[in-house]
């Protein structure tokens, strides 16, 4: 099997996470924001699997599967909201939906 330091795998996960965060913060398009969230979730899953592999425990992959379920749920609701947003405001600009401000 591969002799990869755990640190390197985690570095990859962190970089992916930061890129996902950047997508969420910088893009105004809702579809891109959802993609950013997917990237962040995936990075988290990667970190879990790496941890599981380090200790030879199945728990890491179990949690990855749970994250997968969460991502699927999030994305289905999120995309339905995108459709509603587009239907109501004719735009995919997230700042169009600002009516709920305090």
């Amino acid at each position, binding site marked *: 099997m591969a002799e*990869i330091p*755990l*640190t*390197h795998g985690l570095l990859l996960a962190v970089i992916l996470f930061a890129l996902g965060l950047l997508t969420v913060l910088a893009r105004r398009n809702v579809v891109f924001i959802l993609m950013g969230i997917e*990237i962040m979730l995936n990075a988290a899953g990667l970190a879990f699997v790496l941890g599981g592999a*380090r200790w030879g425990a199945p728990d890491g992959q179990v949690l990855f*599967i749970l994250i997968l379920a*969460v991502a*699927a749920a999030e994305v289905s609701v999120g995309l339905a909201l995108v*459709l509603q947003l587009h239907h109501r405001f004719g735009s995919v600009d997230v700042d169009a939906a600002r009516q709920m401000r305090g």
Partner: protein
Amino acid sequence: MNMIFYLAALVAISSTALVVTSRNAIHALLYLIVSLFAVALIFYVIGAPLAAALEVIIYAGAIMVLFVFVVMMLNLGEQATAQERRWLQPRIWFGPAVLAALLLAELLYVIVAGASGERTIAPVSAHDVGMSLFGAYLLAVEVSAMLLLAALVGAYHLGQRMSSAED
């Protein structure tokens, strides 16, 4: 094998960076799929074949296809790309980039400072994962089933066209 890991990591990072900067939603999605494939490869390399398979089947297969459907339903054309160009000005990039870089630096510091230099990687078979999933984590599985059901109902409700009276 180490080479494969680093190569896949490079592919994942670069394709994700292209997702962040891409102006066309479909292009971005394709880059994202590439990134997910690369991560699946990494999973396989570090001895998690089940995770690798799920990454390909569910993430790249199911979730991304959902994205593609929605993007196509939105029918974002040329003017959407032009709008994205307007939105992606450096002054808009700058603040989020600084924030993300700060968080990244902090996390890197944590990881590097806590690095033990161990290299052992133990493969975990799909059988073990299955036994664990339907043994110790049975309750979590049930709860996620519930979550998925709720998401299904929610998506169905939100997805239907509201009558104009409610608008």
